[in-house]
């Protein structure tokens, strides 16, 4: 941010690319900052606003740089803005979507200590304050459904206890929730990742659907009957009252078409008309499902013969008709001469989902035909099936076990949320601005720049790599970033509590040099920040919990910056215990308390132990070299620890091995905030000097 504002202030146009949905980096997440104990947010937010409002800065958040290529004029940078599925122009940052979202994810902005939703605004001070949806394609279960039903959405809604909403969500995709829950051979369950884990059974999606459908039909809530729309130019005839025909008719009617279903039979439903008792599908349930179709505004004309040709003569704009099942032919609807044909199920009710899918696809094709537009985008919603995916022989019905609501709740709680967003569409419904669009596509743009500044910062050492310290094994061993979040005013739990039991910790230990000055951990260097942030946290803890004891295990206290040693002396004065000792092991003892084994370097010497009820690992900084890969032929040199190397650390700060590419802040080596900010200023000066020398200015 500092580099961007400084360069923009000098009169250069700057594009700032940030991978998260908000700018602010790690600093905005901190509680207070050393050595002044200023509120971190109070320092960051004005800078964030300055970046966002600067007329010369174009901000790309939630975006990644895919490539940087040098050309005759400078660099061509390809930036992919990740798909947020939310129109930032329409989002007002009101958070209503977060309250209805049915998928929880660990909150990366609280170091995973609490959950956020799949749709989220990063944190209260976000810039821009816009929601984004985390979505990794379609979950396997949803993808597997031949009818295009968002199985994951049904499961996540059920998990939230929203069975009615689940049924409504199903009805957006098919009018046959009950029939499917009885008949379908459940490819969704086959694909369920949970079923592929070592001891996991797949989520019983059929059972969930059954409970959902029965609950829906059991309630007094009737399907509202719509009258058939009066749309003469959108009149469609369907020559099939079986599942595929009804599915097509249903979707067309939902899209404003005037649809008439013709059948020679005396009742609609085709192979479902009489129910499928051996699968537990009663006639009554089928009748309710056909009511869904009628409710959508479809006219069903029984005891009537009709041919596509006749329909054409009667002025229908399009006609749909089944063709006899032939496994050797294309298993997808076909459009020809204004007639859409699709395979007919005769004695294969287990393939109901396929029939519904064909109906949906046929409906899309009809719409494309009538409205004279491309059908590709809409067809993506219900993918065409590969022939080999259709079971060749009857897989027999497995009548879904009747599950109670509790059983279901328990079963669905195991859902892994593979695709993250479940497409339950609750956010779409609640958003007052209509900002959410699950069909949105990511955008890519190419930026021509004259110079590139890399300010990609650092990562924190993962203490799980030091298993003896107990992180991820013992709940009360946390990282300093987690502690900082616990101390922040915008913190989780709203209090400083230890994770295992929510007890207020009374005796807290800090283990310095976790992943720093440690050849075995791959980082022989000192990370520069850990001593100071630990001392800061110690002071904040003692302020928040005056009776607590805080012990800092250190090798050397490196309080070297302006006002830092005074800050250290202040912590000593407040009663923080400083123990010169290297912690070798942390073990859990009674009540999930922890015993710290350390090599006492001062005092008595030797290996000693002490008990604490919370251990904070002051993790070091490591390099974050991902960006180097996108530089292609212009890869900048890196040092032994993969930080971006400054070619001359003494007189040329910020200059990399590649002309025109500069490095700012902790991307060239760990730095505290003041040092990073000053370094960013220096990198800007280098970039500006380069731009002026090469004649890029103006």
């Amino acid at each position: 941010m500092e580099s961007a504002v400084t360069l923009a202030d000098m009169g250069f146009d700057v594009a700032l690319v940030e991978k998260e949905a908000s700018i602010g980096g790690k600093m905005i997440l901190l509680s207070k900052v050393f050595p002044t104990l200023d509120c971190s947010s109070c320092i960051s937010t004005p800078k964030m606003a300055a970046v966002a409002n600067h007329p010369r800065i174009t901000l790309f958040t939630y975006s990644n740089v895919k490539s940087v290529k040098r050309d005759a004029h400078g660099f061509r940078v390809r930036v992919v803005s990740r798909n947020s599925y939310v129109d930032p122009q329409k989002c007002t940052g009101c958070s209503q979507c977060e309250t209805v979202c049915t998928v929880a994810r660990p909150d990366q902005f609280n170091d995973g200590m609490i959950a956020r939703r799949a749709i989220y605004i990063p944190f209260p001070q976000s810039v821009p304050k816009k929601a984004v949806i985390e979505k990794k394609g379609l979950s396997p279960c949803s993808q597997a459904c031949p009818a295009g039903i968002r199985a994951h959405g049904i499961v996540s809604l059920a998990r939230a206890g929203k069975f009615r909403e689940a049924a409504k969500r199903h009805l957006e995709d098919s009018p046959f929730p009950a029939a499917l829950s009885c008949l379908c051979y459940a490819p969704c369950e086959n694909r369920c990742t949970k079923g592929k884990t070592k001891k996991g059974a797949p989520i019983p999606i059929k059972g969930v659907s059954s409970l959902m459908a029965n609950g829906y039909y059991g309630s007094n809530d009737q399907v509202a009957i719509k009258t058939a729309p009066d749309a003469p130019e959108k009149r469609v005839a369907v020559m099939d009252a079986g599942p595929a025909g009804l599915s097509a008719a249903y979707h067309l009617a939902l899209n404003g078409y005037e649809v008439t279903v013709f059948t020679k039979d005396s009742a609609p439903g085709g192979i479902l008309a009489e129910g499928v008792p051996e699968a537990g599908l009663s006639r009554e349930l089928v009748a309710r499902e056909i009511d869904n179709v009628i409710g959508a505004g479809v006219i069903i004309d029984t005891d009537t013969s009709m041919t596509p040709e006749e329909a054409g003569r009667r002025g229908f704009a399009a006609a749909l008709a089944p063709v006899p099942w032939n496994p050797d032919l294309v298993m997808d609807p076909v459009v020809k001469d204004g007639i859409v044909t699709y395979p007919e199920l005769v004695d294969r009710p287990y393939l109901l989902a396929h029939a519904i899918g064909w109906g949906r696809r046929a409906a899309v094709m009809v719409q494309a035909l009538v409205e004279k537009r491309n059908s590709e985008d809409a067809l993506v919603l219900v993918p065409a099936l590969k022939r080999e995916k259709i079971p060749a022989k009857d897989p027999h019905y497995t009548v879904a076990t009747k599950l109670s609501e509790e059983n279901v709740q328990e079963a669905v709680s195991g859902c892994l949320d593979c695709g993250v967003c479940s497409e339950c569409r609750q956010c779409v419904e609640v958003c007052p601005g209509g900002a959410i669009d699950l069909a949105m596509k990511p955008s890519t743009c190419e930026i021509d720049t004259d110079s590139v500044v890399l300010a990609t910062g650092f990562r924190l050492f993962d203490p799980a790599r030091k298993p003896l310290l107990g992180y991820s094994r013992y709940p009360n061993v946390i990282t300093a970033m987690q502690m900082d979040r616990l101390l922040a005013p915008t913190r989780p739990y709203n209090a400083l509590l230890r994770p295992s039991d929510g007890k207020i910790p009374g005796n807290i230990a800090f283990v310095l040099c976790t992943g720093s000055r440690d050849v075995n951990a791959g980082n022989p260097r000192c990370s520069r920040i850990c001593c100071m942030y630990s001392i800061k946290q110690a002071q904040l803890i003692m302020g928040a919990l005056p009776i607590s004891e805080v012990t800092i295990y250190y090798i050397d206290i490196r309080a070297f910056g302006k006002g830092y040693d005074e800050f250290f002396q202040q912590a000593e004065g407040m009663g923080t215990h400083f123990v010169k000792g290297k912690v070798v092991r942390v073990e859990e003892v009674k009540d999930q308390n922890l015993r710290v084994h350390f090599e006492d370097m001062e005092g008595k010497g030797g290996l000693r132990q002490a008990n604490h009820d919370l251990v904070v690992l002051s993790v070091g900084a490591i390099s974050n070299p991902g960006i180097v890969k996108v530089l292609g032929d212009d890869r900048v040199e890196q040092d032994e620890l993969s930080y971006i190397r400054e070619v001359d650390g003494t007189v040329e700060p910020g200059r990399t091995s590649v002309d025109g590419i500069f490095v700012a802040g902790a991307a060239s080596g760990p730095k505290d905030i003041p040092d990073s900010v000053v370094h960013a200023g220096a990198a800007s000066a280098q970039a500006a000097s380069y731009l002026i020398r090469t004649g890029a200015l103006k």
Partner: protein
Amino acid sequence: MTEKKIGAFICRCGGNISDYVDVEQVRKEIAREDNVTVAGINMFSCSDASQEDMIANIRENGLDGIVIASCSPKLHLNTFRAMAERAGLNPYQYIQVNIREQCSWAHTHNKDAATRKAVSLVREGVAKAKLSEPLTPIELTAQPSVMVIGAGLAGMRAALALGEMGVTVYLVEAAPEPGGSIKGRKSLFPDNSSGHELVESLLERIRANGNIVLYTSAEILEKTGSVGNFTIRIQVDGKNETTLSVGAVIVSTGSGSYRPTDGEFGFGLSCVLTLNQYIDMLDSSTDTFLLNGRKIRNIAYIYCVGSRRTGKEGNRYCSRYCCSAAVHTAVRTHEVDPSIGQFHFYRDIRTYGAYEELYHEALKKGSVFLKYGLKDPPQVTEVSGSGLRIRAKDLLTGAETVELETDLVVLVTGMVPGENSQLIDILKLPVGKEGFFNEIHPKLRPVETVMDGIYIAGACQGPKTLSESVVSGMAAVAKSASLVLTGKVNLDPFVARVLTEKCTGCGECISSCPYGAISMKETPDGTVVEITESLCKGEGACVAICNEEALEIKGYGHNMIKAMIEALGG
């Protein structure tokens, strides 16, 4: 004043406001207010369509003030100011009233009360709009030149960077030669580069660049003017005076070195040297390694001399560079003569970041480290015939007393502020309690001072290593370049003004201003104060202390605030 025509727009924010506040009620009540020509409701005020509607409204009705009651100004103040500008209105005649974060969202349980509060808030906004006046940001021109004071490494590098940007630079050095503290050094940490070569190569580049004028043996006599337009008088060689006009000033006068008091750790004894003295000796020795004609077998280093003290006995701060400089020197010594024993009496080894590698190197080469505490510092005494004896408690071995005979004691002394009292006086530089120059804010504005247009760089700001000094020098380049490259300074219009009819000329406000922006002015009607807008930051410290209410910040005037209070309280 002609009657203002104000348009007030209440935003529903798609329910975020209208679910908890009866916006129609608010609109009705506001429509009744004097001067309110238009009162409307928007579904989403920030949407393009609503903005276009409002623009049309402003133009059709000739509105000269608008109020939008919507979300926090932090989100959309700039959006709507830009909209006002597009509609041909001065952006400062747009008033945003926060009825979302500070009303509907805070009071979700009581629609009546929230609606009443919203009405009061919008009335306040209307009151403010009535009295709002068109403001324009202050724009000053800036001279396209910079003065860099102090030609140490940071100053030289800064001057060169500016010169390479095409900026005229006056590089002013008090000493007869540029180069500062490192010019004679043979080997600097961490990469053993030669100070002499560094200085020479920079000087060569400076000379080759046509934009830099170097003054040595020069002294600053006087500074007038303010950001963008300073006039500085200097004297060279104690005789020739020159007056220079510059847009900005970078101060990089470096630091001094702590001089131990006589007897402090044996200082004054012939074989007790400061680190700098020892490095001089290393730099000047060739292959023989002698002190007072005797071969050195053992060296003891005592760290933190003159740093990290408590109470009144010395400097409290850590000098940052000395640990790394000392271990680097030890490594050099090991390389000159591996047989020399080296003993380090330290408190904490602060070889931070990559300097840690130097510490490892020293350990690997055989340096021995002993930790002393402030309570029992090492005692240095002279032993006749055999050199020095050092006696200390080593905390690493259970505070055992260690006695060591040594040929040489090196006192690792820290940095102290340079002698700059005259410069401080002339430039009005802010000085911290340790005597180093103070930045405005170590994180937000680390090289800027409260004096706009005057930047600080290098060790004059606090102890720094060489490379860190250069980094801050370059950061100061970036800041000053944004002034001189664009040729103008843009300042917020929210600065103080004097209501001269009320001013009694008492001058109380002059000392209240931390930026020296207020001065006395004689007028035919008596003495009043006047504001130098380019120095004013608009925080209002002067406003609060003037009993006559003769000072106010534009956009926050007394009448306006009082009218707002009345609108809210009524």
